[in-house]
């Protein structure tokens, strides 16, 4: 996508320019840990989107794991104080 100038598409409604896409894609690139290190490399849009998908999936999995762990913790009926401590530490964010 380097060196491409924006060209308008042939319709009367507002069109999406290549520059807009490039900007949005690079903004996305900065959010993804995998790609943030390669900030100065040319990363293809396809690669950025691919890594974005992987990253979102890993975040989903992480939330699922953490929810599961929390559920296990809440199941331990021994000490209410354990639960209280966890809830308290969550509160302190």
């Amino acid at each position, binding site marked *: 996508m380097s060196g491409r100038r924006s060209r308008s598409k042939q319709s009367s409604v507002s069109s999406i320019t290549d520059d807009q896409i490039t900007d949005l894609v690079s903004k996305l690139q900065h959010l993804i840990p995998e790609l943030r290190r390669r900030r100065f490399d040319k990363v*293809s849009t396809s690669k950025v*989107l691919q890594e974005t998908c992987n990253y979102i999936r890993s975040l989903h999995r992480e939330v699922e794991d953490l929810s599961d762990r929390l559920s296990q913790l809440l199941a331990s009926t021994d000490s209410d104080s354990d639960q209280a401590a966890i809830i308290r530490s*969550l509160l302190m964010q």
Partner: protein
Amino acid sequence: MNNPHHLNPTSLKSRFTTRFLRALTKIRAQKPISSSSPTEIFRRYRRIKVAADKSMAYSVRSRRIWSRAMLWKLRSRSYRRQDPCSGRRSGKTNQAIMKKSSNENTTTRREDGVGFVEEADELRQLVPGGETMNLCNLLDETAHYIKCLTTQVQLFSPIGKG
């Protein structure tokens, strides 16, 4: 220190936290007889996960296409649980969301010849409401969605150390 997420961390995160804790307290209060049976653990896990998603979506409210889609999904799920014949209502709301997001800019299939249509479609499956978004919206919504997901993960972080 630079905040790479460009969100006000105090306000989104704190709104998020408050809702989530409130939901957690309710879940914790629901103590069945065998609170450590696998079934119960799984049920609680689902409730926690839904609470986390709800907290996230309600903190963003209808400011984003993805949050609107997520809210619709969450609401229609609870309607469905009470009344299995609520399909008509859900369909109508879905159309409303679709209309709102695809009015702006052109349709999605214009990015021909630039070689990332498949990846974009894959992304559409992952972002709530993505199927209705054009490429511009998809990229923009994805960025915000990722920021909120990372906030959601941070919420659990005291537990993760255990």
